[in-house]
């Protein structure tokens, strides 16, 4: 961090517990038509009013299905997408849509690990130079010092430092993901956004990377935003979990609360849909088989966005958008955006294979 940024941080810090605060963040992608005179014909409502906090030292899990906006939100936090409206504060300072030069000091503090360990490493460059890139970009270390730092990082993430001169192709998927982790750690960031860091890996390798991320968090006091679609992985790593649906947060809570007493019917459906490697449990439990598909984010449903697929929907849901707040005597911090939250013991599902073929209304 530069000197000015440092003093700013000291002056503006109000809430020491919160590292990142999102205030009603909106990200729309315009769809344009026309050859000479381009005009906007529609908008993809990728992220549509998300307010969340990421606390210092915690792991915030972000779950949801394809197109729910979780990756877009992550890219807004890291500054890779300018936001349409709303405010993002990092470490007490407003970093919303900062110009490139002023964003640069924050880029050192906010790093990202990507999903695809094959696509995110340049195949023509040696591993040492890939991991050394952040030092070069920020002008931190040169020559032999950079090499030493890179080798320290390689050791830190469980790679052999003598493999410094190898190409990415000489590493397996799990080792490549370790390279991605080393690169993200280079500048000692405060926040790392992990976008599906293990979903491209084999099961036996996934556990290695998850353990590595947990070790590093303990050792370096990192804060993670952890995006995944695998609910058991998210449950394992996260302190708090936010569930997203069509650009909005449906429910957010401490992980044990969210998995123990999910309030939003969508959270219930998502949890019941996840498969478990335990045949007896799997046979006993009931599933909520949702009807139809996720509607298009170009024209999201009015009212509650989940109402066309919700087993509990009533007329009110189609007109009035529910607020994200504690429901049914839940502790503060367990918020659900639902008019008719699911109470403990309420049955919504059926046993697998017992449902009639769905002929739902949605396309």
């Amino acid at each position, binding site marked *: 961090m530069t000197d000015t940024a440092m003093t700013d941080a000291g002056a503006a810090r109000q809430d020491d517990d919160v590292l990142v605060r999102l205030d009603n963040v909106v990200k729309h992608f315009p769809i344009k038509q026309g050859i000479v005179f381009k005009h906007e014909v529609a908008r993809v409502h990728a992220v549509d009013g998300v307010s969340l906090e990421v606390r210092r030292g915690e792991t915030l899990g972000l779950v949801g*299905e*394809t197109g729910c906006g979780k990756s877009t939100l992550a890219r807004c936090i890291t500054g890779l997408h300018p936001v349409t409206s709303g405010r993002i504060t990092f470490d007490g300072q407003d970093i919303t849509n900062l110009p490139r030069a002023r964003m640069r000091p924050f880029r050192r503090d906010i790093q990202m690990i990507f999903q695809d360990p094959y696509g995110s490493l340049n195949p023509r460059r040696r591993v040492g130079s890939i991991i050394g890139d952040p030092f070069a970009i920020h002008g931190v270390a040169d020559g032999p010092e950079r090499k030493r730092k890179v080798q320290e990082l390689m050791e*830190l*993430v*469980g790679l052999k430092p003598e493999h410094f001169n190898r190409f990415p192709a000489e590493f*397996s998927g*799990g*080792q490549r993901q*370790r390279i991605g982790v080393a690169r993200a750690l280079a500048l000692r960031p405060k926040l790392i956004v992990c976008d599906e860091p293990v979903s491209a890996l*084999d*099961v*036996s*390798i*996934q*556990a*290695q*990377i*998850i*353990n*590595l*991320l*947990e*070790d590093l968090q303990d050792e370096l006091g990192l804060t993670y935003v952890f995006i995944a*679609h695998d*609910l*058991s*992985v998210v*449950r*394992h790593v996260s302190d708090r979990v936010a569930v997203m649906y069509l650009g909005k947060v449906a429910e957010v809570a401490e992980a*044990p609360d969210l998995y123990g007493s999910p309030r939003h019917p969508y959270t219930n*459906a*998502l949890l*019941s*849909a*996840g*498969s*478990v*490697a*335990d*045949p*007896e*449990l*799997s046979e006993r439990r009931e*599933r*909520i*088989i*949702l009807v*139809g*598909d*996720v509607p298009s984010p170009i024209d999201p449903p009015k009212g509650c966005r989940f109402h066309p697929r919700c087993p509990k929907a009533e007329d009110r849901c189609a007109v009035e958008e529910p607020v994200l707040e504690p429901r049914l005597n839940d502790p503060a911090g367990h918020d659900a955006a639902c008019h008719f939250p699911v109470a403990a013991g309420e049955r919504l599902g059926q046993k*697998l*294979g017992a*449902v009639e*073929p*769905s*002929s*739902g*209304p*949605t*396309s």
Partner: protein
Amino acid sequence: MSLLEVTDLRVSFPTSDGLVQAVRGVTFSVDRGQTLGIVGESGSGKSVSTQTLLGLTAGADVSGQAMFEGRDLLTMSSDELRRIRGAEISMIFQDPLSALHPLYRVGWQIMEMIRAHEPSVTKAQARKRAVDLLKMVGIPQPDRRVDDFPHQFSGGMRQRAMIAMALSLQPKLIVADEPTTALDATVQAQILDLMLRLQRELDTALIMITHDLGVIADLADDVMVMYAGKPVEHADRNTLYYQPHHPYTKGLLESIPNSTGTERERLRPITGQPPSLINPPGGCPFHPRCAYVMDRCLTETPPLGPAAGDHGHQSACWLPEDAVGMGTEAEELRRRTAEEGRVGAARILAEEIANAADVKGAVTS
């Protein structure tokens, strides 16, 4: 006699780097109405072994036997095989977008399948059957959607269309190769539910290939675990999940985050990497990663033999037959046997594996 009986199937691909031995001796059988799950990581040979049965692995060297209702699929002429493919054995692939032709309407592609095998069916009849099939797999407004192109379908609907196509001729066996891997969790639940229901209704046999032990837990009667082109364990579903014998199966089960426990336990991954199939390790293929490695594992390949005396439970491992399950007693037996079995080279290897387990992010005991 089972519907399909595969005996000692071996498949290898000559490449410029050497001979890739993708499948190295697989034996299994499937009965009518039964589901066999094949589990393994990438490169374990699970997909190749079933694609070979349908003649989809061009350029491969194949040996062994695959009897389907008394006829050997591997020695059949391509004409005979074509009559079986789709009509009697059909396949559902992982990625429905690349399995459907983007320039033909979904309905046309289903009709083509029907008319190719039953030339007497008129276009109108085939179309009606396509609509009925789409309705059966739960596509809304099937009489309209039948004229859609694949890109107008969502991922889940495309996979439903693939299932409709696979069912169109009421095959006796369906091979589903990672049918839900590309789908979201709630859509996966829809598709699995559909497959389970249709299988019950139509009494079809199903081979389900996946890397996800959770999907198999929902569906399979029997499970075969593959590693480096070989089956390492074969058992009924409950035995495999609760009484695993092979250290690889045990390792796979342990490396999944526990979905029911409340405490955050540290995961126990398998150390190391899956082996190369060009030059697979001698002896037991899993020995370079196995915490219970013994001297004989390095040189002698364990055969797939009975384990724990349970009916049909088979495992390819030199550990004692009754070393099954996750309990402390079995663990004690495994440790003691392994310790006694290490006099020579395995001692050093076992130490290396234990050290590798101490690498950052791996197991710390």
